[in-house]
């Protein structure tokens, strides 16, 4: 049964934005109420705005009828960020996926929120530019979703996260008129009072709807040297990484996978080398002239730290030909297939991906600790991550019908977060709080003696969203 207020709301926007932008087909509603986290919700309609005015109209009616709004890009979130909790409607940005302007002199791209990161990069590539935030889910992740999750990616060590690559944005507020504001600036430098644009980044759709974004873009490096090194001993791998960081080299990409993960991920892909041990995948941006020197440096470094295999390419094309990225790209597939080899086909499995971050100097401690804890639980845990910025993703696959295992996983999850906090880290680097990490957030605030932060955040939330209708129940 659809609640009366939602029914009235749908009738009103039917008139104001047009009925071909609203879907109420039962099965489609269920389809949109999911997320890779495995969480499932329930809603009364999915609405597809096609322009900013549509968004303002939707928000204004939602405010009037007090209808919950769940914004969605591609719903590829992993912490329950995009799942509808209580009854309400999903606002999906998939039809707002235009690139409005690209300006290589100003280094900006102005885009609608529904564009996928990969699509944007395909377009920018023509001018030899890129948008450097590349979550492993970049083929699906939308700009609106990445902004609201504060996403990061493989190039995090060099380029940071979304918060570093959005100059400004237009938002629409859940008020009488669906008021639109332009936060931040068109330029990188910007001192417009409090930095509200940064406040929206990572707010997981709980403060406002992003209707347009002014993104920073950057030229694709002239040359990129990539080295894949495999180490029998994890400590050797981590030592080589720390030595490189200490010597002042900032990697373009620094990805890591532990031996068990490498073993699974290298199965079923066509690479013409044996991959045994823990893998470090390092890319460094250089000039054509210096790439040979960098190649030698990396090879020597890894040799010194007892790598059992080192394969290096001088440019991207060679890296592709050698298949250096193949194992990394197969990580998620490996995590999924590991589950089926462990529990057998026909089971309903869940891949649970942790997202802790520690200062890079502590990464060795963190990984060893996580390994220890996981072994104690007897859980099949793979560890990989964006080692360059200290962000690791221990992940576990489990059978969701097995209660005993589920309890273990929940407990493991907490322990892993605790490891991060004990090492001056944080419980979430890029996936966000959503539903699954709300406890973790409190844990972190407590740990840093900073509980009042939660109250401040709650006050901010009510300023933006007085009726509490935007993605209710998330983050706080």
């Amino acid at each position: 049964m659809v609640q009366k207020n939602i029914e009235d709301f749908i009738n009103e926007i039917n008139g104001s934005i047009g009925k071909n932008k609203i879907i109420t087909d039962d099965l489609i509603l269920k389809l949109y109420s999911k997320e890779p986290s495995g969480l499932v919700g329930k809603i009364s309609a999915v609405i597809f705005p096609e322009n900013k005015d549509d968004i303002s109209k939707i928000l204004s009616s939602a405010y009037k009828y007090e209808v919950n709004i769940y914004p969605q890009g591609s719903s590829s979130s992993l912490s329950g960020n995009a799942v509808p909790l209580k009854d309400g409607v999903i606002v999906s940005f998939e039809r707002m996926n235009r690139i409005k302007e690209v300006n290589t002199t100003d280094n900006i791209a102005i885009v609608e929120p529904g564009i996928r990161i990969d699509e944007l990069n395909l377009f920018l590539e023509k001018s030899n530019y890129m948008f450097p935030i590349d979550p492993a889910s970049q083929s699906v992740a939308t700009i609106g979703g990445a902004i609201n999750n504060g996403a990061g990616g493989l190039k995090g060590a060099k380029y940071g996260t979304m918060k570093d690559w959005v100059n400004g944005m237009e938002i629409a507020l859940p008020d009488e008129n669906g008021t639109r504001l332009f936060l931040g600036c068109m330029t990188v430098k910007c001192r417009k009072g409090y930095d509200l644009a940064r406040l929206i980044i990572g707010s997981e759709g709980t403060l406002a709807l992003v209707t347009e974004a002014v993104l920073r873009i950057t030229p694709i490096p002239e040359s990129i040297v990539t080295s894949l090194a495999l180490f029998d001993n994890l400590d050797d791998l981590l030592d080589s990484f720390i030595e490189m960081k200490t010597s002042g080299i900032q990697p373009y990409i620094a990805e890591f996978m532990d031996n068990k993960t490498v073993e699974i991920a290298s199965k079923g892909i066509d690479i013409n080398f044996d991959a045994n041990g823990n893998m470090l995948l390092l890319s460094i941006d250089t000039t054509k002239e210096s790439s040979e020197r960098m190649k030698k440096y990396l090879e020597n470094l890894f040799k010194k730290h007892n790598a059992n295999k080192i394969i290096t390419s001088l440019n991207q094309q060679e890296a592709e030909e050698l298949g250096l990225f193949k194992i990394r790209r197969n990580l998620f597939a490996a995590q999924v297939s590991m589950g089926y080899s462990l529990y057998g086909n026909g089971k309903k499995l869940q891949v649970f991906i942790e997202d802790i971050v520690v200062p890079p100097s502590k990464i060795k401690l963190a990984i060893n600790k996580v390994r220890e804890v996981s072994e104690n639980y007897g859980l099949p845990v793979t560890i990989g991550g964006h080692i360059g910025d200290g962000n690791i993703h221990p992940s576990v696959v489990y059978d969701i019908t097995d209660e005993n295992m589920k309890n273990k996983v929940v407990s493991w999850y907490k322990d892993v977060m605790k490891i991060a906090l004990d090492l001056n880290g944080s419980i979430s680097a890029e996936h966000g709080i959503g539903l699954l990490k709300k406890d973790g957030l409190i844990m972190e605030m407590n740990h840093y003696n900073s509980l009042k932060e939660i109250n401040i955040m709650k006050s901010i939330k009510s300023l933006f969203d007085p009726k509490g209708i935007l993605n209710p129940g998330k983050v706080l």
Partner: protein
Amino acid sequence: MKVNIKSLYDEVNRCVYCGFCEAVCPTINLGPHRGYGPRGRVNLIKDFIENKKITTEFLASVFSCLLCDACLIVCPAKIDTGRIVRDVRSIIRNEYKSSINEKITIRER
């Protein structure tokens, strides 16, 4: 030959809802919703097998697929949406023909 619903179900049940497949699907951006892409097709089919219910949009989803299998290549769970959709068309015809009263129409955005 009768389609083996059990193995069909096991296959769609492997979906982790990551959406990687949507990036390569030619039909997703043409239709009005996610049901016009592989993640939608797979999850709608899963729901259909579980609850034995069909809707207009479900039918549009199943009949707007090209069976081109671009999605299979990028799917981490190796789900063969093209072959699955073909089989589901057959199930619909065999078992639900009489319950389809409306036209099946593939809608543009």
